[in-house]
């Protein structure tokens, strides 16, 4: 191994380690984490929006062929600006993907399992919810909207 190779290898290692340290800092320090294994919430059969306190909500999203059920069949819900929402996701049938656009909420909906992430809606506006996993012929028309005012 000549000198140039050694320098190149060292730089590559430093760069990759640097990236990894930043990722871990963002996850554990800034609490921007990804879904983990949920064992204490069972998969639900219906969407539900529960208000726990002022601007503190729990949202159960049921993805199904071919809509998002946010609250007893409703595909649209309203939330006040600044709401902190614990969002749980499951699927009634096949695999769906739940992406609340303009947020970091991006979780797969897999039947028999529950996915979870917390979202804070800091800006008013319409947050489109898009299904991004192929779930059948109606996949491109999965309806879901969160209005924050």
């Amino acid at each position: 191994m000549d000198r140039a190779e050694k320098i190149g290898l060292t730089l590559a290692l430093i760069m990759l380690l640097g990236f990894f340290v930043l990722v871990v800092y963002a996850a554990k320090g800034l609490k921007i984490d990804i879904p983990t294994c949920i064992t204490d919430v069972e998969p639900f059969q219906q969407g539900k929006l529960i208000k726990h306190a002022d601007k503190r909500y729990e949202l159960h999203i049921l993805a199904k062929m071919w809509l998002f059920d946010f609250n007893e069949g409703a595909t649209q819900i309203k939330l006040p600006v600044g709401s902190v929402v614990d969002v749980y996701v499951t699927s009634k049938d096949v695999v769906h993907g739940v992406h609340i656009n303009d947020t970091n909420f991006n979780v797969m909906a897999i039947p028999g399992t529950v996915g979870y992430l917390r979202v804070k809606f800091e800006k008013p506006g319409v947050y489109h919810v898009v299904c991004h996993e192929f779930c059948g012929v109606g996949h491109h028309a999965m309806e879901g909207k969160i209005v924050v005012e």
Partner: protein
Amino acid sequence: MRVEGAIRFIILSEIVFPIVLLIFGIYHGVMQVLYRAGFIKAESFLGIDYYQGLTLHGVINVIVFTTIFIVGFSNALVMYALKKPLREKVQWIAWAMMIGGTLMAAWAMFTGRATVLYTFYPPLIAHWTFYLGAVLLVLGSLVPFFFDWIPNAIAWKRENPDQKIPLAVFGTFVNFILWTIMIVPVAVEILFQLLPLSLGLVDEINPLLARTLFWFFGHPVVYFWLLPAYVALYTILPKIVSEKGKLYSDPAARLAFVLFLIFSLPVGLHHQFTDPGITNTWKLIHALFTFGVALPSMITAFTVAASLEYSVKVEHPELKDSKFYWWAFLPYFKMEGLKWLFPFFFSGLILFFIGGITGIINASYNVNLVVHNTAYVPGHFHTTVGGLVLMVFFGMALYMIAKLKGTDVKFKGLAMISPYLWLAGQMIFSNAMMIGGLLEGWPRRTNSGLTYLNPDSPFYRPDWEGYALFSVIGGVIMGIAFLIYLVPFFATLLAPSTKESTIEFPFAEAYHDEPAPLLNNLRTWTVAAIVLAVLSYIPPLYDAAVRGVFFKSPAYIEKFPVPLKQLQQSKKEEPSGQEVVRR
């Protein structure tokens, strides 16, 4: 080295058949961009549904084309490097399994019985011929490795006990060892989960377990596509640049291959960062290993650049002291000798540079939340498998058919234009996809022209229009580039033979070379790779099989929002109803 008869036919068909199939694969690629942008506002076009076409695009391009071409290319490489003939019987068995499997799966896809995309996530289920065809294809691709190349390599080693195995064979063997290991989990998924469900032997499936087994295979497989291109970068590219060209370092190349063997497998969870049911500590560990597998690509980037520099400078001694100016003297558009192949490699390398960096973004754990399943992801992998891999395969395919046909490459000028045009198209397409996905959340795998990019739809998202338009421009340019490539390809294939049929490769010697017994001990590295893969997968598989999944799911087909069983029962009760649904 002369080839004739059956072996010549088999290798030739393992190159021609996948490229002919690509005509369908790339046609559906062009159709995708038109549908997605709303240029075609329909469920289907010419009898093929959007999602059916997407399945064909994915399965043909990255499962069938890659696998069969890699077997053909590797057959030729191993045969020439070891100077040992191949066994006809073994090759015929492999050929029949691969072609037979392909035809089975193709029937299911073309008849609309397997619209499940190339990831075939249950509980969506396809016709059993799709799964059995896939199993036959991958098992057939292993036959030459075990029954032809390994015996030949053992015999070679006996005759040359003091030499290390040629680098081309070393890289090919690492690739097929990886391929063998990664096939185990996906074979378990297909044979024990999907096939029984498809045949109606069982009623339910654990979809998360199936996904986890799939991605145990589904990420390493990208290295199965990539490593043959790396073999060509290391062993052939220096000789394309200059007849006196050399590989910068042989041990560095072997180190890169060994690192791929170890780190390619424990990384699949980075496709499941957003999946429920799997503890995120294990996702983080897989993220770390994914960063590890970036290392051999960085080593390769160094060694390839150094080999290019050496090979240019040996031809242009006046550039001896130049730091960057030598880049201007690479054979970007020269026809003599093998230099016509350089545009393929160069276009591929540029794209792979982008593919590597964007891949690190995907692998970055929480950063993945921004890009997961958006158009960013296909934007990324079209620069890897649709970049370096495809460009090197196109170049080598043309080179090999000329040798096997005993003729010269026809229309070399067109052959040199096509990779540059592809590079331009791919840059425009992947840029549009990546930015649209990253900034605006434009989803992948979605017929967005019907809803999101349809001004008459309540789902209309005007902010995605510009990205969609550029993806069309890029996609159409790539389609044209492929058509241009087909001209020299078929002209060479159909040209009369003027010389004898041969297989030969311009293997470069190494500039730095030394014995590296530790690196060459593939047995030890294989054991290490298996141990690491198993250890890194026991906890997530336990999560997916037991902890994270509350109940199993019945099968569905893509057309109806009720389980398949229920659908079949209600059809039986009303025999006079609509078409009988069978899968």
